[in-house]
């Protein structure tokens, strides 16, 4: 059992949990993730390590479906049945020169730990974060501190640049100041944003989020195609070269269980009404 030591809502429908998991924090690095299972009936879901402090790991998630909504309803002091990790390969942190770390939506949550590690390795780091509107932005203060420079974008112009992180990235590519770029967010955002560096030769990483089960390389659920080759995102990734990813295949596979996800959520809300134990 792994205790929730701190819980906050930090943006619309987005939550930050600190969970006691010394086995994760000991070696957990930027780019890696945990797999958690709330209770005996639960699904195993992957969530990125957003920060670590002592024996506690931070996860930041959007309550989108059954599991993340159930998680969001948990309180400080309660415990999660299983937290496995750290899983996946750490980010390619080394001295690159000038790096941009770009986050879209809840993907912003992955940036603080990455920005800090890149800084510590001697890089200059520009953070670029984007969300549909101001209410969906997160971790601005923390990123402001972790990065040398932070650019904020909103699709509707409610804060910062009116537009997308891709706009900012394009400018920086044109100025030829970047050596490496990380883009983390929804599939479609990563696909489109990474086009900005395509012809520039700038190393560009994305963090892929296919559907996972074990997270240890045992099932193949997370298989993705990188440069025409099959890779397992949970052990070979989740970070890969953006320009080698078969995006359409990834996004198709992410939609595998759309029908069941809806059913699961309905079952959850119904169940809540009947027994009242989850309210």
């Amino acid at each position, binding site marked *: 059992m792994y205790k929730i030591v701190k819980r906050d809502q930090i943006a619309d429908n987005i939550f930050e949990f600190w969970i006691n998991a010394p*086995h994760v924090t000991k*070696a957990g690095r930027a780019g890696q993730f945990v797999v958690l299972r709330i209770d005996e*009936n639960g699904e*195993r879901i992957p969530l990125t390590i957003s920060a670590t402090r002592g024996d506690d790991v931070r996860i930041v998630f959007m309550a989108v479906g059954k599991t993340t909504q159930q998680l969001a309803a948990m309180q400080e002091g309660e415990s999660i049945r299983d937290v496995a*990790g750290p899983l996946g390969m750490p980010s390619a942190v080394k001295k690159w020169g000038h790096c941009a770390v770009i986050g879209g939506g809840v993907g912003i949550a992955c940036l603080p730990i990455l920005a800090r590690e890149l800084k510590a390795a001697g890089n200059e780091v520009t953070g670029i974060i984007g969300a549909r509107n101001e209410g969906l932005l997160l971790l601005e203060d923390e990123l402001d501190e972790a990065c040398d420079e932070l650019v904020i974008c909103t699709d509707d112009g409610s804060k910062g640049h009116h537009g997308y992180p891709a706009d900012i990235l394009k400018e920086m590519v044109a100025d030829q100041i970047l050596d490496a770029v990380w883009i983390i967010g929804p599939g479609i955002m990563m696909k489109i944003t990474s086009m900005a560096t395509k012809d520039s030769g700038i190393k560009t990483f994305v963090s892929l989020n296919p559907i996972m089960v074990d997270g240890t390389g*045992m*099932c*193949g659920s997370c298989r993705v195609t990188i440069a025409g080759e099959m890779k397992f995102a949970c052990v070979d990734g989740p970070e890969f070269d953006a320009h080698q990813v078969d995006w359409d295949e990834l996004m*198709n596979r992410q939609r595998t269980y759309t029908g069941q996800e809806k059913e699961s959520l309905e079952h959850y809300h119904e169940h809540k009404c009947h027994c009242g134990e989850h309210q």
Partner: protein
Amino acid sequence: MNRRPVKERLQDFDEVATGLSEQNAVLEALRCMECPRPLCVNGCPVSIDIPGFINAIANEDFRKAARIIKEDNMLPAICGRVCPQEAQCQSTCILGKKDKPVRIGALERFVADWERENGVEAPETAPATGKRVAVVGSGPAGITAATECLRAGHEVTIFESLHAAGGVLTYGIPAFRMPKDIVQFEIEQVLTLGAELKLNHIVGRSVPVDELLAYDAVFIGTGAGLPYFMGIKGEKFSGVYSANEFLTRVNLMHADKFPEFDTPLIRGSRVAVVGGGNVAMDSARVARRLGAKVYLIYRRREEDLPAREEEVANAIQEGVEFVCCANPTRILGGPGVQGIKCIRMDMCECDESGRPVPRACTEAGSTFTLDVDVVIEAIGQGPNPLLAGLIPGLKRGRRGTIEVDEDGRTSIPHVFAGGDIATGAATVIGAMGSAKKAAAAINKMLADSE
């Protein structure tokens, strides 16, 4: 073999094979001739004193029978169920020459089940040595190594990356062959000997390699969990599973009880399983229980199927349709599965092992399409690459196994390995046998270093 009726067993995941009654066990035991030089023992990878325990059954001293078995095999309830007995102990039993061999596996299972119901005797353990042993993986290999080291008085920590112990016994072999309460019961026996079990711990990640190597001895039993894929077009469609994923979703995550359990699964109304081993049979039989029409596509002939005879018979009884001498060439559809295209195979000249080599037919009209909506690939698994690849200086064999000598020693002096990670995908009892040897070598090394 006594089996529950097909109609009944397709409705649930309860055990198919029913055990022997006390009376029938004694009668079966009385058939054994107690050969002075028992050939059956040669067929058992852990050399159980088979006539010894069968004689105890014949004398209705079941407690004694259990004691005898446990000297060589700590997991008899498991082996009695899933050992390929017909190819091991029972294949060499002298009675098999003229008549049917003694049903050694069924008797072993009977004794284990009797003991579970009548109270298990804890094995004797040596006084504490203060030496620390790390066991990586809680499959049959890890559990066996842990038991042997505990009995020698060492402090044992078992690390398991999943949220449940047991390895393939838990996530792979379905409950209708290997009931999960029995697996958990046998594992608890080991824990009561004093092992510490750390679930959700991925060695190499949660437990860094230097921390692992700081133990006085290390046993690696990480198994052959890496699923292979055919490499044909359409494999990334939704509804294409590795057998590991399909079985894990059902056995470990209980997707058969969705939405009561959260893990989803595309059940499919028509399922193609590709492969011919135990893993393929298990997948096909699970799919039948989920209500699908099931085709099993195998590239050789029916008589070449590598799965246990008993499991093939069970699959046939349960209505699995065998499509032999055929091989898939592509999966049709997108984004979901809409069919599987296959080609007929000719059996050509034999390879060194005497098996004919299948080759795709070249004549026109050799291809056909099966109308399916789920494809499960059960074409084999490779050694788990994660940890083995992280330990500097650890010698690895072909396809990524860990190289070991006869006693399970690796190229690093205090690191040992056994089970599927050392041999490639094999059997439960094979994994236990190799783990036992490695544990004996560990115990000897630790005793010598006093």
